[in-house]
């Protein structure tokens, strides 16, 4: 078989068993590639279970920076006997199956269009380590060592990662080194190396970092000055508060007393979690909660209260596959509508759509300013893929000149200047009124916060005309919000194509790659990435400027498309859905195929290419 060599462009998948310590070996593998200057993106495909079920770790390596998921596995490390048959089927023709040859492969698993590379991982481990737990753990490092030889990973880079990882537990460094070398040496002794698919050092990382979106979100809350975090555990949002806590412990402890400048409240459920957030922000602290779809459903009543009583709330929704418990450990963007219109009555909420960890950081921090400025819930719409996987991301940035925007809050001096304070008086004609924090002034500024209808002075009323005045004024805030929310990103200086594509959040990775794939076929599409609801004029203009717009998203019902139709009154036929909802991140190939099948006259597009 003649084989062309493919450098820095591959998908490698690890098939492991949950709870066997493979995660740290796999992370080491990705980090080494990152440190070799090659763009890399790992994804965990894991079960809703703690121990014993199959789990996969899929790594895309691409020196051009295409890091969305790609179908077709070039090399699969299969160390889970349970899934071996399926794993072998998943390798693409001409690809490699690396397995633990301590046990013989089933004859019926043999395909003749892929290569088999047996490494006696367990045997090697048992020869060198006594304890069964160690044998299990170091087996993982042995396969990383073998891969180092097979695809050309710098051993010294791997060793440095081990040194850093076990800095405090030095005893663990030599056995890790030993395991690496065992795997490495075995390949040198038994196989030709490197394989035709392999790595070469590059300098394509720049100042980028590799971080999970949830960690960046937690850090965003730290930087924005959140002091009260209330939450109830749910995958895939749990690591948001974990991230917050990790850094709060480092950065928010009073050095003299050891006391905390924050409170993390593990609530009894999501209803209580958001209630605590509302109570805390009502009382002048910055506060947030993180959850996923089921939690947002439970929070709905309170979200409506915060909307109507105009209380700032920051809610992070790390979306997962629904409905119901759905696919709790798989990714989707299925809560677009239920978040946009969460709660009963006329409500709509500001949504932010980060697509990288750097944006998770920035938009979470922005969410606190927006919540205070607009006095309403802000929902940060992350997802499992973004939140729980490490992504190559621009570094997190905090502008030295940035200051918190606490919005319209009156202090005691302000109140002294005012003859009669009205909590819901639209003094500035932007729909946003002035709030007061309990305890501010002995005689002025107190009012009764309520979810019932009330007048401009917060007095209960059932007068229909007053009610209409108030809810219309709240709608005016929606217009004001358009000035404050992040504007969409355009990928061309001027629109030049008849068709456009529109995407948001994690769909961006595959969408941008699909655009380039189409370009190679002479098809140019204008593109827009939406970062927030409400949609501003740029979105309207973009849609108007195109005959058709492909709306790419990861749910069954084209929810974002519905949102566009509803909010902008776009004729539905103008928006073509491009959907993926099998729980795996959408691929560029799937997007391209769908778009191609909708373009009967590609010549139209070609003619526009200059």
């Amino acid at each position, binding site marked *: 078989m003649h084989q062309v060599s493919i450098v820095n462009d591959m998908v490698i998948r690890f098939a492991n068993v949950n709870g066997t310590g493979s995660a740290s070996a796999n992370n080491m593998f990705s980090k080494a590639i*990152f*440190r070799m200057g090659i763009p890399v993106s790992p994804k965990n495909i894991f079960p809703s279970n703690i121990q014993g079920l199959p789990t996969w770790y899929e790594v895309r390596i691409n020196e051009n920076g295409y890091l969305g998921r790609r179908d077709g596995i070039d090399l699969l490390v299969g160390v889970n006997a349970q899934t071996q048959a399926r794993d072998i089927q998943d390798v693409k023709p001409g690809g490699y199956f690396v397995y633990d040859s301590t046990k013989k492969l089933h004859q019926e698993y043999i395909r003749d269009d892929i290569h088999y590379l047996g490494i006696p991982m367990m045997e090697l481990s048992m020869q060198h380590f006594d304890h069964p737990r160690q044998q299990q753990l170091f087996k993982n490092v042995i396969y990383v060592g073998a891969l180092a030889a097979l695809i050309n990973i710098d051993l010294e880079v791997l060793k440095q990662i081990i040194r850093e990882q076990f800095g405090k537990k030095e005893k663990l460094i030599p056995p890790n080194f030993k395991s690496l070398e065992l795997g490495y040496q075995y390949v040198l002794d038994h196989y030709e190396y490197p394989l035709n698919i392999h790595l070469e050092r590059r300098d394509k990382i720049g100042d980028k*970092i*590799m*971080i999970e979106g949830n960690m960046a979100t937690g*850090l965003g809350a*730290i*930087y*924005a*000055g959140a*002091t*009260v975090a*209330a939450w109830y555990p749910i995958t895939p949002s749990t690591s948001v508060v974990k991230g917050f806590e990790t*850094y709060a412990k480092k*950065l928010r402890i*009073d050095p003299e*007393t*050891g*006391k*905390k*400048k924050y*409170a*993390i*409240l593990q*609530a*009894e*459920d999501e*209803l*209580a*979690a958001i*209630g*605590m957030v*509302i*109570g*805390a*922000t*009502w*009382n*002048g*602290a910055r*506060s947030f909660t993180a959850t996923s779809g089921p939690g947002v459903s439970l929070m709905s*009543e*309170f979200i409506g209260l915060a909307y109507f009583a105009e209380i700032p709330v920051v809610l992070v929704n790390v979306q997962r596959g629904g409905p119901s418990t759905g696919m709790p450990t798989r990714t989707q963007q299925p809560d677009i509508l239920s978040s946009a219109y969460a709660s009963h009555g006329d409500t709509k909420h500001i949504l932010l759509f980060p697509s990288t960890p750097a944006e998770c950081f920035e938009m979470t921090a922005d969410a606190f300013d927006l919540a205070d400025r607009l006095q309403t819930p802000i929902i940060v719409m992350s997802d499992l893929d973004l939140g729980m996987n490490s992504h190559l991301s621009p*570094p*997190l940035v*905090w*502008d*030295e000149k940035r*200051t*918190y925007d606490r919005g319209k809050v009156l202090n005691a001096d302000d109140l002294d200047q005012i003859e009669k304070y009205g909590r819901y008086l639209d003094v500035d004609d932007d729909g946003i009124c002035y709030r007061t*924090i*309990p*305890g*501010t002034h*002995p005689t002025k500024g*107190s*009012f*009764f*916060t*309520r979810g019932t209808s009330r007048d401009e002075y917060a007095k209960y009323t059932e007068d229909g005309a007053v009610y209409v005045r108030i809810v219309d004024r709240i709608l005016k805030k929606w217009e004001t919000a358009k000035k404050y929310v992040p504007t969409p990103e355009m990928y061309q200086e001027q629109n030049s194509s008849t068709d456009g594509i529109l995407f948001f959040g994690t769909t961006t990775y595959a969408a941008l790659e699909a655009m380039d794939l189409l370009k190679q076929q002479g098809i140019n599409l204008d593109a827009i990435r939406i970062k927030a609801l409400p949609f501003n004029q740029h979105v309207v203009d973009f849609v108007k400027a195109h005959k058709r717009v492909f709306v790419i998203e990861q749910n069954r019902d084209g929810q974002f498309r519905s949102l566009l139709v509803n909010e902008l009154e776009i004729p539905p036929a103008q928006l073509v859905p491009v959907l993926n909802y099998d729980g795996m991140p959408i691929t560029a190939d799937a997007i391209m195929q769908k778009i191609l099948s909708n373009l009967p006259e590609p010549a139209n597009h070609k003619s526009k290419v200059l």
Partner: protein
Amino acid sequence: MTFIKPKFRHPLLPKNKIGYYKADYEGAISTLCAGCGHDSISGAIVQACFELSIEPHKIAKVSGIGCSSKTPTYFLGKSHGFNSVHGRMPSITTGANMANRDLIYLGVSGDGDTASIGMGQFVHVIRRNLNMVYIVMNNGCYGLTKGQDSATADFGSISKAGSINPFEAIDLVGLSLELGATFVARSFSGDKTQLVPLIKAAISHPGFAFLDVLSPCVTFNNNKGSTKSYDFVRDHMEATATIDLVPEEEEITVAYPEGSTTSVSLHDGSTIQLQKLAPDWNPTDRRSAFNNLQSAKAKGEILTGLLYINPESQDMHELVETVPSPLNSLQEKDLCPGPEALDKINDSFR
């Protein structure tokens, strides 16, 4: 329904220590039914806050939904208030208290608001020993939705419509004792002499102070056969002790007969004086409280008074170890680590 009160204050009206009139603690005119027990409790709250000389703006009133939860409009008009959603007052209060530990939190709820829809939050706020007063205006029914049985309606009690309640009642006092509440009391809306000092003691208690106040619903549950009616409660009340709260600064002048008084010192320096009716009564002994509660129940009596207090109570801020200054007072410089720290953090992800 109360009549509109003139704003004018007679110069001879008493002021409290900080110069406020009692009227400064009042709220808007009540719109509850005339004779509703809840209004009497509002009055007792006004009296207690006046007597304790609390600055009204240092109190935050929080409630759920129900006739009872409406009452914060009718007292402490100079305090911020929050009428939240049904059964969720504890979570709002928890967040508020975490944001500012320096205010006094006065939570008001109903028996429906607490013992049904809000049971989960009630139980958990006890567990956290949040520093707040939690008053249940307990009428054994859902007043606002027109008189359905609540979970505190007694077994066998007869509703206005004539149906007999076939289910066991949840006794919120027994439950909170069981859950480890650090202050548990019961009273009756019609008994101001007992209720006012209890509210004062609850406010002074550093931690979760629970007050179950029987409060007849004159419209839906004051009929013969209801165990939450005025007549029934009056006839079956059994007080544990008469109680008085002596704030820190005041000298103890009230003389109690030897041998029948107990005093409990609170963290803020004030003292609770109890004149015991039952000889084996010890309000700091949870087991004694249980026993007395059970024996009263067996006799068909409703035990009232301060049933239990833990003078060693540590509130939630102490448990979660927050800084002494309110979290909402921390400024950007206290909270934002700045760009240099972020550079280091970025480096740790390379």
